[in-house]
């Protein structure tokens, strides 16, 4: 089951890049993953042989482009266990997918006093749209708090869900790596009569995702985190919900008929896809899904778990109490994301110093400022792992952090 990382590395052209005298040690896949050559080739091939606008032309290359675009949708659907391809709406990214739900389903169904339950782990993409709705409509936001080791504290869950219309939670934190027990949460939410939106942005890249097994209602994710191009993402939702939802953006493709008096909408999923979509990017996302499927998501998960366990141990061994590590202590409870902070060196400065030796780690609030406030820090450093990383990369990181510590020592 273990990955042939050397072979995988050869698939990613950027890994030949050098930073000064150093090889690139890319440890920021949780922000955006690098792209294998097959993904780039799939897009270039489309442009070089079959590019045309989709769903519009009768001529051969338009038919081919449309078929490739829709085949990509089917691949994405299969990848996340969606029962039907038409339940997958292409969006720009996970952020737009969540906003789409907020603008359509939520605005059609929620009013003053209606409750949306979030968690303290959420990314801004799953916070700000609900703040906007709260400001506009007077909905109430409730927050699932965290345990001391940064898992969801479910002791008060029933009270939080009481009377709630929607539970919207991440399946895996992009800061602490915490893996959330989505099926349990979904069951509780459904029992309370709430719909369930899952932010699967991190999970799709790291664990096998099955929206049916989750029993979710809406699931949002992005292509660029699963080794596909940026500029495309997806919302999966149950067909009957999509059917009932009002449309979002208005324009070409999403209509059935338009007059000077009004308009009627197209079938799902196109009803939610106004204007010319990211055609090559959809094909690229399909190729990325094929790439991950060939590796096997179980193998990917085992690999991420292994690197995470190795990194947690290596960081603890080397830096002890001088380095604070966030999230659950056991790698079984977390994805391939490790956030940490030296007592007296700012995350930004750490990132800058390790960049000198080719190590790319993220520094900042990771678009999770509410969580930062709860962790009591302004920012953390974060290393995150992709299929192309190995234990060597972790060793390089630890060594580089040692240099940073030395550099900033009095």
């Amino acid at each position, binding site marked *: 089951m273990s990955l042939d990382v050397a072979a995988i590395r050869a698939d990613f052209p950027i890994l030949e890049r050098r930073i000064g005298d150093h090889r690139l040690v890319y440890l920021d896949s949780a922000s955006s993953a690098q792209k294998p050559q097959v993904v780039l080739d799939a897009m270039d091939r489309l442009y070089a042989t079959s590019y045309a606008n989709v*769903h*519009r*032309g*009768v001529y051969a290359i*338009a*038919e081919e482009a*449309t*078929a490739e675009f*829709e*085949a*990509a*949708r*089917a691949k994405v*659907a299969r990848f996340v266990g969606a*029962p*039907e*391809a*038409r339940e997958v709406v292409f969006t720009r990214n996970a952020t737009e997918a969540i906003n789409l739900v907020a603008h359509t389903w939520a605005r059609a169904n929620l009013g003053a006093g209606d409750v949306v339950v979030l968690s303290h782990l959420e990314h801004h993409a799953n916070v700000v749209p609900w703040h906007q709705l709260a400001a506009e409509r007077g909905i109430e936001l409730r927050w699932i708090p965290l345990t001391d080791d940064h898992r969801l504290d479910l002791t008060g869950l029933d009270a939080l869900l009481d009377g709630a219309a929607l539970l919207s939670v991440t399946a895996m934190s992009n800061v602490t790596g915490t893996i959330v027990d989505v099926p349990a949460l979904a069951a509780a939410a459904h029992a309370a009569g709430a719909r369930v939106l899952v932010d699967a942005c991190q999970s799709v890249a790291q664990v096998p995702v099955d929206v049916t097994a989750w029993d979710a209602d809406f699931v949002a994710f992005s292509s660029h985190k699963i080794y596909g191009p940026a500029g495309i993402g997806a919302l999966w939702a149950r067909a009957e919900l999509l059917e009932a939802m009002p449309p979002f953006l208005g324009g070409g*493709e999403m*209509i*059935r*008929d338009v007059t000077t008096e009004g308009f*009627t909408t*197209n*079938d799902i999923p*196109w009803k939610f896809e106004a204007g010319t979509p990211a055609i090559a990017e959809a094909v690229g996302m399909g190729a990325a899904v094929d790439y991950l499927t060939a590796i096997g998501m179980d193998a990917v998960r085992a690999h991420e778990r292994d690197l995470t366990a190795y990194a947690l141990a290596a960081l603890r061994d080397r830096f002890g109490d001088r380095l604070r590590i966030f999230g659950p202590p056991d790698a079984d409870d977390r994805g391939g994301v490790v956030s940490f902070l030296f007592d007296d060196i700012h995350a930004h400065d750490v990132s800058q110093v390790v960049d000198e030796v080719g190590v790319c780690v993220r520094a900042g609030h990771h678009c999770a400022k509410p969580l930062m406030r709860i962790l009591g820090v302004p920012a953390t450093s974060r290393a995150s792992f992709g299929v192309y990383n190995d234990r060597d990369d972790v060793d390089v990181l630890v060594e580089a952090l040692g240099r940073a510590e030395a550099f900033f020592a009095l």
Partner: protein
Amino acid sequence: MTGLQDLYREIILDHYRAPRNRGELPVPPAHKVEGFNPLCGDEVVLYLEVEGGVVTDVRTGGQGCSISQASTSMMSAAVKGKSVDDARTLIRAFKALMSIHESKLEGAEGTDTTEADLAGVRLGDLEALQGVVKFPVRIKCATLAWNVLAQGLDESA
């Protein structure tokens, strides 16, 4: 033009040039249904008279390409006088003829209509439309009238 000759069979062009059952019926007792192909603007209007479980009369209107209009005409001829049940079976059989390709185009996972189910159904002239499956974009032209019929039967039930 081998491909084209497959698509535009003589009988299709005949129905296109001389559509059967064009016109309207008084509503009620007839039921009026409309459908659009959002892609290209093809439009099918159907007047259905259903009495005692039988499609007693059909009239058609609308505008569109040869395939959509020929399919409408052929459909009207095929279901007129048929029982609602038989008409529904015909819909399923016709869509089975088209469906592998339609679902492929839409990325759907296939169809639940089993071949066995429809083995006995005779499509007759309608089989001329099977050349359409080689031109995936046109499948929606061919199936439009049938989707409108299905909707009409549901609504008259």
